[in-house]
């Protein structure tokens, strides 16, 4: 029960960050009203969690509440909004997430001991064990005989992202084509609204973090629709790993928008039961996402397309 409460709070913190990112993208200012319905559609969740996230933002003096009017921004500049997002991120940073972030950013090695983690994070043995348990539930770490814990491969390099896309190219079209696909039209509609909202942001201001969140939501949704339970399970676990460890802040604005449009086209096709078309569209989408820049280039030399072997 305790764990459920903690995870609910984490969700509200994540939602709070999403709300503030949207407020930044819409260039909202101090005193602007935040309508529940608008944010519910933009974030793709019902109004109840939005209300809870608003409340949490109010507790942190980011929003103010007026009776019968609702919530209003209590901070003004984009810097203040960015600081507020950071503050929520700090609150959200559970030990498990800090460990995972440090691993994804190569601050810690792939083999860890409980004692080593206790020292690095100044945490109790119990806290570290809980964090490792959370990570092992998602398949990120595995306990070895003895005291060692080993991280599994994560999406922390161009080569790893390329392998991930190769894996997804094999499975994601199959998730759509497997007999028994079932599409939750309400959720599809919420996702559609979220993507349309992101597409509405002015050119050059789209947040890579918000795109990544919506991207993993969309691909997880397609996995959940699948009629093949093993494909579904493998893809859902993989998208969880992508969500927590893949960081790509380098995709040009044009490609982010093109990618969102491809998601919408795939949704159109699965909603109208054109599964073969949807699977083909998924292949096209993933192939475009798989394009790699040269790893190194120089005048007069053939570009290096793959990181050199160690």
């Amino acid at each position, binding site marked *: 029960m305790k764990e459920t409460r903690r995870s609910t709070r984490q969700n509200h913190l994540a939602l709070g960050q999403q709300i503030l990112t949207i407020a930044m993208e819409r260039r909202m200012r101090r005193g602007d009203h935040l309508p529940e319905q608008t944010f519910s559609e933009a974030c793709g969740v019902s109004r109840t969690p939005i209300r809870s996230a608003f409340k949490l933002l109010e507790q942190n003096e980011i929003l103010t509440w007026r009776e019968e009017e609702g919530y209003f921004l209590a901070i003004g500049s984009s810097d203040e909004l960015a600081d507020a997002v950071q503050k929520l991120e700090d609150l959200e940073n559970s030990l498990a997430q800090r460990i995972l972030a440090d691993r994804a950013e190569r601050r810690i090695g792939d083999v860890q001991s409980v004692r080593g983690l206790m020292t690095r994070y100044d945490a109790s043995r119990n806290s570290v064990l809980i964090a490792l348990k959370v990570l092992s539930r998602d398949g990120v770490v595995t306990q070895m005989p003895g005291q060692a814990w080993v991280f599994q491969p994560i999406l922390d390099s161009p080569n790893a992202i390329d392998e991930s896309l190769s894996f997804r190219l094999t499975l994601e079209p199959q998730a759509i084509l497997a007999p028994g696909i079932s599409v939750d039209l309400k959720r599809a509609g919420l996702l559609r609204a979220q993507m349309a909202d992101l597409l509405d942001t002015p050119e050059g201001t789209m947040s*890579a973090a918000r795109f990544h969140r919506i991207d993993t939501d969309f691909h997880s949704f397609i996995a959940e629709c699948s009629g093949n339970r093993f494909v579904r399970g493998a893809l859902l676990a993989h998208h969880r790993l992508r969500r927590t460890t893949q960081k790509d802040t380098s995709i*040009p604005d044009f490609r982010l928008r093109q990618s969102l449009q491809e998601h919408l086209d795939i949704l159109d096709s699965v909603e109208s039961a054109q599964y073969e078309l949807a699977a083909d569209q998924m292949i096209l989408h993933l192939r475009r996402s798989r394009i790699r820049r040269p790893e*190194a280039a*120089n005048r007069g030399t053939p570009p290096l397309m793959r*990181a*050199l072997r160690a």
Partner: protein
Amino acid sequence: MSVSPLIALFPEASFGAALNCVGIAQKLRQMGATPVFICHPGFTGVFAEYGFKEYHLAPTAKRSTDAIEDYWQGFITTHLPHFDLDPMAQLPTYVAPTWQAIVNTVVAAEDGLAALFDRIRPDAILLDNVIMFPAVANAGCPWVRVVSCAETEIPDPDVPPYLSGLPADDRIGRERFEKAYLRETRAAHRRYNAFRKTHGLAQLPAGHFLESSPVLNLLLAPSATRFPRRNPLPEDRFVYLEGCVREETRFDAPHMPVDHARLVYMSFGSLGSIDTDLIGRMIDVFATLPARFLVNVGGFLEAYSRVPDNVYLGSWFPQPSVVAESDLFIHHGGNNSFCEALYHGVPSLVMPYCWDGHDNAQRMDELDLGRHLHRSRWSPDALRSTLVTLLEDTAMRDRLAAVSRGMKAEPGTERAARAVMDALGHR
């Protein structure tokens, strides 16, 4: 000519030229032109991600990925030691073989390039390279030269020799360097001139591999760093640009376990990232400083472990957006990095590897807009002290702010696109 002129941009196979052309193409598109890219093998998709149509040159020789990796392993072994040499010593070791390799690429690309132009039939070609491709000159449409290296690429008696890293007033050094340059590039130049002859192009003087365009030449040389020339370039054909900084995706600085206010960005370009030992040494110094460091390690991310808490490694950053957020930019003196630092008013620590990086490092240092440091000959204390001094130099920051204001008042991408449209009669 069509209402929306079709403009084929043909950057060399390097990120500097490629991304510089993206900046110009973004503006050309806004002005109603149809920019398309001629794409070297390996650059497939780089321009499509910015929304531009690509036409691909076929690989000139069938090389497997393994063979290219072996080539790069050899390149690293051979040339890493050369990057430590001074510009004069790099002439026989790095510059001469690189010119030979560049001539090879021109010879190999010629037939495919001519066929592509025949297929596309552009209204104009933008060539961003250091060498002429006969197919460009013979395409039957105007061509524009983009000089995206340092201004030194266009010679003048009062401008230091290209690739020399010399100050403008070093007459003795100049004579020695020019003589050595002509000697070391002679073999490649002879071969290239012979190739030009077979394709009906005029011979070029010794040391020259690319003529000026009779229509329009664009120089990425901000006014703050421009050299006074004894023979001023004709204004009707030469247009100076205040850099050429492209529009990039928004950058949100990553969260780090430390809370230092200052942000330092380091990138030596994709070529510089091959020296993982050097970057590792620098990271050890960064770990001792109260600042956050973003380090572009290109395709070599997997070579690093135990990254300090104040350092974040990435294989690619939307550089102009990152520089805009930074307090200091450590780079190799590539002309895009040079211009982006000035455009955003950010001090530079320039640690050149080769080519025009030497020229830009010297220029940045002599104008007091940054510092020049040998790329590898430094002690941890010396590097630390240089970084701290640059971060605290408010006078330099004030000078840079003025430079930045001037450059932003006349963005180079817009000026370039306007000049191209004007040259084509689309006012």
